[in-house]
């Protein structure tokens, strides 16, 4: 059990699941092990900032950064998306990072940047796709986080009952 605990300590808790940290230990690389995509530490920080803008931490509830939803997003893009999606995702992160498109903005402007990308059909298709994927995965990560499921009681593993006439007033 000691070995297990040691491994667990080494792992990163992302929205409730443990991700293996990257083996390289290279501070310039992403902090989680990825098989198909390559992300730099700075691009990872950018993704974290975008995720945090999507679901910010507030004084009463954790946000995307607290729940490591950017790492969950990376994991899902790496394992569950097509090569085409992955290419768009990585390339968008690279462009945004290189040109400081997002990080140079302050709070309210960051939100507007994301909203514009999602809503403006004339925005670059690749960036739009990147933002759609990121938003979808960050939301999924939040809904399926230990926080939402356990603290907010949004999931029950063992109901042990069924009532098909449950009055809505009781909600």
């Amino acid at each position, binding site marked *: 059990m000691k070995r297990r605990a040691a491994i667990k300590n080494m792992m990163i808790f992302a929205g409730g699941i443990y991700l293996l940290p990257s083996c390289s230990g290279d501070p310039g690389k992403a902090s989680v092990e990825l098989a198909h995509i390559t992300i730099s530490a700075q691009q990872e920080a950018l993704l974290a900032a975008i995720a945090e803008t999507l679901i910010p931490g507030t004084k009463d509830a954790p946000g995307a950064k607290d729940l490591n939803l950017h790492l969950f997003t990376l994991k899902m893009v790496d394992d569950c998306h097509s090569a085409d999606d992955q290419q768009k995702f990585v390339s968008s992160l690279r462009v945004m990072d290189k040109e400081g498109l997002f990080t140079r903005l302050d709070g309210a402007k960051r939100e507007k940047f994301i909203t514009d990308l999602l809503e403006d059909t004339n925005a670059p298709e690749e960036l739009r796709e990147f933002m759609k994927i990121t938003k979808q995965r960050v939301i999924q990560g*939040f809904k399926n986080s*230990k926080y939402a499921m356990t603290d907010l009681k*949004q999931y029950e593993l063992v109901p042990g009952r069924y009532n*098909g006439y449950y009055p809505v*007033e009781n909600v």
Partner: protein
Amino acid sequence: MPQLNTDSIKDRTFDAIVIGSGISGGWSAKELTERGLKTLLLERGRDVRHIKDYPTTNMLPYEFEHRGEVPLAIREKNPIVSKCYAFREDAMHFFVKDTEHPYIEDKPFDWIRGYQVGGKSLMWARQTQRWSDLDFEGPARDGFAVDWPIRYKDIAPWYSHVEKFAGISGNKDGLKELPDGEFLPPYPLNAVEDHFKKVVSEKYPGRYVISARAAHLSQPQPVHLEQGRGQCQNRILCQRGCPFGGYFSSNSSTIPWAQKTGNLTLRPFSVVHSIIYDEQKGRATGVKVIDTNTKEEIEYFARVIFVNASTVNTNLILLNSISHRFPEGLGNDSGVLGRYVAFHHYGGDVGGRYEGPLDRFRTDGRNPARGYIPRFRNVYKQETSFLRGYAAGLSAGRDFYSDTNAIGEALKDNLVNRKLGPWYVGSHMMGETIPKKESYIKLDTDKKDEWGVPLLRVSVDFDDNDAKMLEDYFEQFSEMFAAAGFKDIRTRKRPGAPGIDIHEMGGVRMGHDPRTSVLNKWHQLHACKNVFVTDGACMTSTSTQNPSLTYMAFSARAANFAVDELKKGNL
């Protein structure tokens, strides 16, 4: 597992051999061992022990690396099994991957398999509706296939026998087309399902909406507690294996029960190559097995052999059992072995939304059974332009949701404070298909798998009758949903080839006449009486009901007949 001394014929000789440990093989083994027969239960896959080998059973959604989603690399490598609704991250270890066991699709066939102790009984949908004479008499009345050699009265006591032991929830609905059984308390319909039931009973005479009968312990009886099973906890994570034994599976029920008799030898990792036929004795004497770990070939011997390898593989074993007497496959004097394969037509669903006074209710907890609408087309006489008909599953429900249009604190607020959504209503069709001679399972003459068994070729397809039936289902359910005031009614064709229903049947059909069928009314090969087939391969026609309960009853009936015949010296 006991060490088997493979050097001694005596140690490799049993009273009975059962090939396959899924839902029917588990029942064959239970009955044979209970009646005192030393029984060898062969399983081609690995062992799965109840609870111990359900690795995901208590995992929370956030403990799955991909939150339930199957990674793309696995989906791309296994396109067929990836079409199965239950092939998800939590249960994918119980499904055969396409690449592990290839077969040849002369026509597209989505073959969904579970190679392990318990087979697909671990992941099945647990729906257990009886057949009636309206089903058994179908082929004779409508002039297709051949007449079933049995009727409801032959099987009714065996339905009772297996229902009591397995534990089936349900109402006594008093319907001729769906006979009542030995039921535990039903899972009641919810507010909107009841509303639909009321509308249908008022406006559509002869159509019924009932609580589906399902293999869940809604109220365990002493016989279930004795199996070590307890009350169903409404988790509906059944495909992972249930730590409570709340639903029936070979693993939780029949296999441990057979083991308790002291008469069972369970041998996993055992692919059956063929059944050995002794030309002098004029009977089957055993089976040839390939150990999947060592690739060693071992022969086992017994006086009776039950083939419960699942529909397609049962066909394969018989077709591959070649002798001087049976050059075209064991028991295949008629030439129909591997022919007249059919399936269930799950080609469509109809959905909608309810709005109205029942919005004051929602559901709480989960219903493992849901609603069922027995076949109402052509029940007593031919009325439509297509033969036979379809049953349907029905469910209504209400989920919490969050508006995810916004971003930032507004989005977060929506995610934290979910709203109650509208009632949705959904149904899916389960149609009978007509077995046809040109629908076949056969062996490739050239290619073999890694155990030296010929690869299968499968050719089964939808036909005109299926297309007409699907249109009728869409029309009738859209109309009934409209009559119930449902909004946004939409129909959807379900993708997938035959096989995706996971109810493939036939190829070794029962019948009166050895010239046109392979099995007699006791599930014996007409031409080799000590070989029995009681899984889906024996089906003469498919009707609409989920077939597992019928396989269980067939297995129990045939096993007890086999023991009686052995005692009389007839086998």
